[in-house]
């Protein structure tokens, strides 16, 4: 029975995750690493052998890049393999050979061989590291065979250094190694390897001797071999666990472990990070590395700050999530972060301070341990002989300026003057109080140095002038020593408190600024309706914080990033910053991969601009290019985080706009569908009537009995044809106009126009229709020029006058214009029957006709066109009945620009 079955089915969530992982895997290429303990164990050989086997099975295998080191056996294996020619790079006059990533991507084989995973690429290649090339190959769905030695694995790097005494600079992040689908250990016992070395099979003989002495000592090789075997064993272990998971073989371990490590500018931090990584991977836990920047630490020299950034980068490359916090106390901020993130274990460095320092101020470790609660705290010791962390230099506060000293001396001088006046009348104790007041003033206003100066001066002057014996520094009563000491201590304490207050305020201000910046951006973004506008807002906000140039690069329909017209600078000036083909390529890469590229990133870091993809939820909108004047501005993670969050906010806003546009297009489609239907039904009437007249008249004229017509009848029929054809012509014009104007945003060709001229043209065009009517035109002589599209404005007035002619037969017309400060309004009124009540706003609807049964035809498109034209100019149009009868149409155009001189 079901109820009796042991609950051994896999957890659905875990299964889903597995399926998703496998899906990613099936799209990605597979990575196979040939892993060895030292150079010369035969990794390249093994890799080539495996490749030959694959090729023999009919797989499309090519050699992307193999380092031969002049080893003939290896070279022999290349026979019959397709070898990709390397790319050559010119760098400072040298010709360098490098794996050609683009050629490999283009060739797109099933499997590609790329030797030496840890290799650093030469300047000018796309990525600084070869493993990044390989990741891109995998993402493109190409399988990769590669080789690496144990000393290049990032997390083992320090252990290898301890064993061999040789620092290896080229490292591969653990996640790359961990993500390999297969790791094949190529093992060779140390004695055999040394034998090979001596036979010159690994390096050329003279190089061999040197290598033998430095690195290839037997002890080293044994230790490295042990490391390599252990690393492979750990992977096997992980694979086994995964298998057990898959098959619901339960095994419990503490769930949800999280490790947190606090780093600082001292050299110990790197060790802390590696230790944290080892602990985290042993626990299968997520881990965080944080740096808490206290006001004291903001004074660090750039080199020290750079070191912190390096450590954070290292942590990131080892798989940590990093954060840069700011606050008054390291311990408090770290603990708050730890609680927020459910951290179970914290790693901190052992303090290198003397015991008496601890007496006065608890060390970081003490504070953390005291406040840690249920969190386990691990304390890691520093290396013996490691240089102590450099003391942060004194912050050159604004108070240490000579002016502050002068002011504080001035305060003391003023008090002394006051004391001299008061002295005979008041007690000396009160004089001390006055001096103390001066010192407190100096301490709060001018900082520590000037306050100490004030204290010392006060003491000296008080002693010299007022303590008996007067006018000498000798004191008769030793009690005054207490006075002096208190005064000095007060000065120090107050200046310290004041400085701390100021620092706290500045930290708070910085936080507030960031929050305000984001808030201001989001508020502005909400107001903009188009992508370009959003781009401009983002540029402005970024350039407020960073001096440099910025542009938003958008792709065309095929997803090719377009060269931006202009780069915007901070002061609003626009410059043509030529994006060299290469930089545009970086932008394209950032867009395609939805990852940042350029300066300070993993991809083409040598560029002088950074390219951030505008990643929204569904797709990437474009790329932000930012070229700071001083590239160091981007190195602070906080700054980068702020930039990224601004960019992301904008991307979301851009996506919103795009979706709105799509929705609008859909609306337009519905609208035009409706239009088509109404049109079809209207055509039956409005087109057929004139056509019937034309065909009738023309067939009569050309028919059998045409000769029977008298000249007057003939002329009547001819006139019918012309008039009806002209009516058709107007219908077609109106239809075309409306289609053109409602198809998309109306393209205005604005010019400075005189309204008089527009009236003149309309009256001329309607000359025949206006015969026998009186048209009164009232234009003020000082009517300003109108900034509008000439053709459309004329069409607007034409339609209004024509409408009046049609609906107010025989009536006189008035055309009037007047200018106010902000607009120009024009009214066209007739003295006909006026609009039926309730029709005032509906007359501008498409296909609306005043009186449905009226003989006058005309689609009711004319007024709809008027509305589109007025609105395209940013104006308003309305209709109402005048007090003395007759309809009045009124439109108002804004005067949004001043006419040129």
């Amino acid at each position, binding site marked *: 029975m079901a109820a009796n079955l042991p609950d051994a089915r896999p957890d659905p969530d875990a299964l889903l995750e597995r399926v998703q992982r496998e899906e990613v895997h099936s799209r990605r290429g597979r990575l196979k690493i040939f892993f060895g303990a030292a150079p010369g164990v035969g990794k390249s050989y093994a890799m080539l052998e495996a490749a030959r086997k694959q090729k023999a099975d009919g797989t499309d295998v090519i050699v992307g890049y193999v380092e031969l080191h002049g080893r003939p056996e290896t070279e022999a294996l290349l026979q019959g393999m397709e070898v990709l020619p390397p790319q050559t790079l010119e760098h400072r006059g040298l010709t360098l050979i490098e794996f050609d990533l683009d050629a490999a991507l283009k060739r797109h084989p099933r499997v590609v061989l790329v030797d030496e995973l840890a290799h650093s690429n030469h300047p000018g290649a796309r990525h600084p590291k070869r493993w990044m090339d390989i990741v891109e190959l995998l993402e493109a769905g190409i399988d990769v065979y590669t080789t690496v030695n144990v000393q290049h694995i990032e997390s083992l790097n320090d252990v290898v250094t301890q064993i061999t005494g040789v620092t290896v600079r080229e490292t591969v992040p653990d996640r790359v190694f961990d993500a390999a689908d297969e790791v094949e250990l190529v093992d060779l016992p140390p004695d055999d390897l040394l034998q090979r070395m001596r036979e010159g099979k690994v390096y050329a003989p003279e190089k061999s001797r040197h290598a033998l002495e430095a690195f290839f000592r037997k002890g080293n090789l044994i230790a490295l071999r042990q490391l390599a075997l252990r690393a492979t064993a750990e992977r096997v272990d992980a694979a086994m666990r995964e298998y057990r998971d898959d098959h619901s073989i339960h095994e419990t371990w503490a769930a949800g472990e999280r490790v947190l490590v606090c780093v600082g500018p001292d050299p110990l931090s790197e060790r802390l990070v590696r230790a944290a990584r080892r602990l985290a991977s042993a626990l299968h836990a997520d881990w965080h590395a944080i740096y808490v920047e206290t006001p004291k630490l903001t004074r660090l020299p750039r080199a020290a700050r750079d070191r912190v950034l390096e450590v954070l980068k290292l942590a990131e490359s080892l798989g940590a999530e990093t954060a840069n916090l700011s606050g008054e106390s390291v311990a408090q901020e770290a603990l708050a972060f730890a609680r927020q993130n459910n951290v179970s274990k914290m790693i901190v460095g052992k303090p290198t301070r003397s015991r008496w320092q601890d007496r006065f101020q608890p060390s970081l470790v003490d504070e953390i341990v005291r406040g840690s609660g249920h969190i386990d705290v691990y304390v890691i010791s520093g290396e013996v002989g490691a240089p102590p962390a450099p003391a942060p230099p004194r912050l050159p506060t604004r108070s240490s300026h000579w002016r502050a000293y002068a002011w504080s001396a001035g305060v003391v001088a003023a008090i002394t003057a006051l004391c001299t006046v008061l002295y005979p009348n008041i007690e000396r104790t009160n004089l001390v109080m006055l001096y103390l007041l001066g010192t407190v003033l100096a301490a709060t206003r001018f900082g520590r140095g000037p306050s100490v100066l004030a204290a010392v001066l006060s003491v000296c002057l008080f002693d010299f002038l007022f303590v008996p014996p007067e006018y000498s520094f000798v004191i008769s009563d030793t009690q005054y020593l207490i006075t002096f000491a208190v005064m000095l201590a007060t000065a120090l304490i107050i200046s310290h408190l004041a400085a701390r207050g100021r620092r706290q305020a500045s930290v708070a201000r910085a936080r507030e600024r960031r929050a305000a910046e984001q808030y201001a951006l989001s508020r502005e973004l909400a107001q903009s309706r188009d992508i370009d506008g959003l781009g401009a807002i983002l540029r402005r906000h970024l350039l407020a914080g960073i001096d440099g140039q910025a542009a938003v690069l958008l792709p065309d329909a095929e997803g090719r990033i377009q060269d931006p017209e202009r780069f915007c600078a901070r002061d609003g000036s626009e410059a043509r910053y030529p994006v060299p083909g290469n930089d545009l390529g970086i932008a394209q890469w950032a867009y395609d991969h939805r990852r940042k590229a350029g300066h300070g990133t993993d991809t083409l870091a040598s560029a002088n601009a950074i390219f951030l993809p505008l990643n929204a939820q569904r797709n990437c909108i474009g790329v932000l290019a930012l070229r700071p004047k001083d590239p160091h501005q981007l190195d602070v993670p906080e700054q980068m985080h702020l930039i990224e969050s601004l960019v992301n906010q904008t991307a979301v806003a851009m996506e919103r706009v795009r979706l709105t546009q799509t929705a609008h297009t859909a609306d337009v489609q519905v609208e035009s569908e409706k239009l088509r239907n109404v049109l079809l039904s209207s055509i039956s009437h409005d087109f057929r009537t004139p056509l019937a007249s034309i065909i009738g008249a023309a067939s009569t004229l050309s028919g059998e009995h045409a000769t029977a017509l008298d000249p007057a009848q003939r002329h009547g029929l001819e006139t019918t044809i012309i008039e009806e054809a002209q009516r058709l012509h107007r219908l077609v014009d109106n239809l075309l106009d409306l289609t053109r104007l409602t198809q998309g945003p109306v393209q205005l060709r604005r010019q400075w126009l005189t309204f008089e001229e527009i009236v003149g043209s309309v009256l*001329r065009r309607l*000359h025949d229709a206006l015969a026998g009517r009186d048209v009164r035109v009232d234009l003020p002589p000082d009517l300003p020029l109108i900034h509008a599209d000439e053709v459309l404005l004329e069409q607007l007035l034409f339609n209004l006058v024509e409408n009046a002619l049609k609906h107010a037969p025989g009536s006189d017309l008035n055309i009037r214009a007047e200018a106010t400060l902000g607009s120009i309004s024009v009214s066209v009124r007739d003295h006909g029957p006026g609009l039926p009540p309730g029709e005032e706003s509906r007359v501008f609807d498409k296909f609306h006709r005043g009186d449905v049964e009226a003989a006058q035809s005309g689609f009711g498109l004319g007024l709809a066109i008027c509305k589109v034209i007025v609105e395209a100019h940013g104006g308003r149009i309305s209709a109402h009945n005048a007090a003395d009868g007759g309809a009045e149409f009124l439109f108002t155009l804004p005067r949004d620009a001043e006419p040129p001189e």
Partner: protein
Amino acid sequence: MNPAPMQLLAIEDDPQIQRFLSAALDANGHTLEIAGTAADGLRLATLRQPDVIIVDLGLPDMSGLDVIARLREWFKRPILVLSARSQEADKIAALDAGADDYLTKPFGIGELLARLRVAQRHVAERDGATLQTRIDADALSIDLAAHRVQRDGVDLHLTPTEYQLLTVLAKHRGKVLTHRQLLREIWGAAHVESPHYLRIYMRALRHKIEIDPTRPRYLLTEVGVGYRFADDPAAKH
């Protein structure tokens, strides 16, 4: 006035319009050759050396603008352009490319004949060796030698720019001049991008010349294209 018969060439691909043109022009005493394609038209133009060529802007094998440019390499006589409405930019481009005037489809035969008459007159004036010293249009007379403008015998006081604007248009009486052409002629090539000059001076000029500036008789506006001095001011209004 019965115009002298002309030798005409129409480059137009629509058979109905071809038929209408040939019937109407024949009836008015002109001879019309018709070419259905630009290639045919260019060939016939060299062969027949017509007095006026009528070019439709929408031809199947070549853009009308290119046809005008090719013709203007050697053809010095008038070219008339046929274009659809709402193609003001095309009209201006055609005029700037060397066409003399345009007609908007659909057009009546009367309009076409008027345009042909103007073209014919300008050829005659250009070929005639005598210099024109006086232009009379209805009540308006311009004495080019004396720099004097009169309406109904009363002197009108024009500024030099207004006078220049008036005479440039009047000398091309009946023919449209684009904004650019006028700006270049009067203010020089540097000011072709400042069309508001033209509007302001045109308003001032109309207030002096026209009886009712909102119903001009002499200085007509071709919306979106330019201005034209009325061919026959008495005909309308």
